[in-house]
């Protein structure tokens, strides 16, 4: 008997990916992956808010240095947290102290982590094998060998 392949919806996949980038977890919410949506929102949000509370630096576009440009792309991954960083962090960055430096890294980590969740949302939307949420039915996880 031929195995049945589930075809995903490319529009849904792109919508979920963009939504997940703008608001962490929103892409999974669109895909009705409730627990993943909640966990990703709180984890990425906690990292980003902690980074800002520690007065970490947020990189902006048009940086000259290559590492600063990489930092910009990492920060941009945090979506809404990046665009609202200056509103949230009213006191501004203070990377002269170690705590501010840790904050910079935490915020960049939040962006990179969110990009991973965006990739997963896209994969689920495309009908990939990352449709493993809450079922425990033996479906393959993202990154697990077939």
């Amino acid at each position, binding site marked *: 008997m031929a195995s049945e392949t589930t075809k995903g919806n490319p529009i849904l996949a792109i919508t979920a990916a963009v939504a997940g980038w703008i608001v962490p977890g929103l892409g999974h919410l669109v895909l009705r992956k409730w627990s993943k949506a909640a966990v990703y929102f709180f984890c990425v949000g906690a990292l980003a808010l902690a980074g800002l*509370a520690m007065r970490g630096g947020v990189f902006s576009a048009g940086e000259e240095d290559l590492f600063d440009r990489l930092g910009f792309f990492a920060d941009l991954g945090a979506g809404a947290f990046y665009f609202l960083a200056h509103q949230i962090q009213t006191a501004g960055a203070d990377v002269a102290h170690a705590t501010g430096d840790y904050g910079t890294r935490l915020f960049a980590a939040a962006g990179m982590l969110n990009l991973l969740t965006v990739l997963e949302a896209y994969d689920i939307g495309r009908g990939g094998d990352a449709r493993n949420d809450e079922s425990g039915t033996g479906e393959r996880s993202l990154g697990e060998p077939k």
Partner: protein
Amino acid sequence: MTRLFANLTHFGALAFFALVVSITFAFLSKRTTRDRLEYSLWAFLAFLVIAIGIGWLMYPFSQ
């Protein structure tokens, strides 16, 4: 919250990072609650042990 995180030590920041990233990785890569719990715990401990180990390895160079 700002005050809490502003006074975070290096180890505190490491532990917080390790906890949050471990949970996210578990949800990205495992499908059952039990697997996710086990993976979170192991990844969290691995983050701490490896970071402390690397710290001790670098210690002689700080003198």
